[in-house]
């Protein structure tokens, strides 16, 4: 692999050399390295691009890395990754995509990830998106995440897109079973002329199902963002969705939270707040000796931490 790709891997997956545990690295649309373990198997799909990741029941404390890097301008990469997480497993999955585009053609990665989380299993899923390169070609990503949570299982999902992606449409669909829970933390920053859309739909179908969908976003320059979340309470359940956005320059943000209670014991809350950095906050940090610009940076960095 070239140094550009290694650099991208470091940014999106904290990977320096080969990671511990199972991994599958996809570079410029082809497999660039794979390792399986006694408990985690990774197989290429035969009918379409992508892989199946199969985690044995009871697997504890293992990590799976499945980063994707693209450094070739004009590449259009579509991939289907399916995760089968066995009962009582407790694993961390790190996915992410880095695009380095110096050319003038669009580079694009569309990843469709489907999770089947078995009974009482626990999954931490971390996904980072990053783009760089001076070319005029677009750096675009459209991740789709589909989650099926079986009885008593939990999934924590952390998605981060901090820099460099010109256009993104993130779609997340989840079905939460009995006593299962889904927690989503999204961090998003757009700048320049970028556009980002996120769309979460969570069906709380099982008794005692729960979800918490939290998005923190910063929109700078002339970028635009749309946040949609839809929680359907179809049983005795708890759902909370929150979108908090800092608006800067000439950016625009639209938040559309929706909650649907279809059961008497569904307890659902939505919150959305969009606004510029409060003058008092800047002032306070300035009294600590920071310039206005430094104060702004600290507030934004803290907000997206």
């Amino acid at each position, binding site marked *: 692999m070239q140094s550009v790709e290694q650099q991208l891997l470091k940014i999106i997956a904290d990977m320096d050399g080969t990671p511990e545990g199972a991994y599958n690295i996809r570079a410029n649309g082809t497999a660039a390295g794979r390792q399986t373990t006694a408990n985690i198997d990774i197989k290429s799909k035969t009918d379409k691009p992508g892989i199946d990741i199969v985690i044995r029941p009871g697997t504890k404390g293992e990590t799976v890395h499945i980063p994707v890097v693209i450094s070739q301008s004009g590449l259009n990469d579509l991939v289907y990754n399916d995760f089968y997480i066995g009962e009582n497993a407790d694993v961390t999955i790190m996915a992410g995509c880095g695009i380095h585009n110096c050319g003038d053609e669009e580079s694009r990665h569309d990843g469709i990830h489907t999770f089947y989380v078995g009974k009482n299993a626990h999954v931490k899923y971390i996904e980072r998106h990053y783009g760089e390169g001076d070319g005029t070609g677009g750096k675009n990503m459209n991740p789709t995440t589909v989650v099926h949570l079986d009885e008593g299982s939990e999934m924590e999902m952390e998605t981060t897109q901090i820099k460099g992606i010109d256009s993104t449409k993130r779609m997340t669909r989840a079905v939460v079973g009995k006593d299962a829970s889904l927690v989503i933390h999204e961090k998003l920053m757009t700048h320049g002329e970028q556009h980002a859309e996120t769309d979460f739909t969570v069906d709380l179908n099982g008794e005692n199902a729960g979800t918490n969908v939290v998005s*923190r976003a910063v929109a700078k320059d002339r970028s635009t963002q749309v946040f949609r979340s839809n929680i359907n309470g179809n049983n005795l359940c708890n759902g909370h969705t929150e979108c*908090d956005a800092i608006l800067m320059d000439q950016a625009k943000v639209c938040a559309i939270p929706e909650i649907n209670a279809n059961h008497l014991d569904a307890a659902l809350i939505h919150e959305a707040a969009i606004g510029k950095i*409060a003058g*008092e*906050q800047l*002032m*306070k*940090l*300035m*009294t*600590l*000796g*920071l*310039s*206005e610009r430094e104060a702004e940076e*600290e*507030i934004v*960095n*803290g*907000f*997206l*931490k």
Partner: protein
Amino acid sequence: MLELEHISFSAESENGETKEILQDISLKFEDGFIAITGPNGGGKSTLARVIAGIHRPTAGRILLDGEDITDLSITERARRGISFAFQQPVRFKGLTVQDLIRLAAGKDITVGEACDYLSQVGLCARDYIGREVNASLSGGELKRIEIATVLARGTKISLFDEPEAGIDLWSFGNLIHVFEKMHQNLGGSILIISHQERILNIADKVAVISGGKVEAYGAKEDILPELLGAVPSVCKVLNDSVKGVE
């Protein structure tokens, strides 16, 4: 030394009239502990904000160790050694208590050092250091963190706007102790806006601001007896009735 020369400040009220909040205030703050007191609405907080650079005076000059800082920004004044604890501390989503103390100290500090400042204001550091300075903290907790940031800065001018407000009775004794200790360790001026007799009592000098003017300024021994003697006709009635109950 901080000097205010003929400071006036006016602002437009809601109905469009110009209101003079500070009128021709001249004060010299030497090193030591100076309490600023006076009735609510008398202009004390405005004066503090003028010193910190948040409000620009409409007339007059501010001198710090002889240098005219009237036209300097908040940042520049902070860098020259003015610290300001807000009456109503600001909340930040995302920034942690440790972040704030690090920014106040102006350098990377260890968890141990940050904890030290927090313990001084009566907070059990371990419980607070990683918490966000957001709505999950109570008003009293925020006030103490605000005071800790000023301690962490350790500048020659430390300005506190009603530090006792929102602090419970149990922590108040501790707070007095913090200021006493600051007084010993920090060469420089500690300016405290306060209504609390116990704070006025540990001051070297007391300034009384009322109706936007300096009503009195001098050694505590000269100002306090008059100040406390002047008000209490009401308090006396209260005391009598309490005694009556006994």
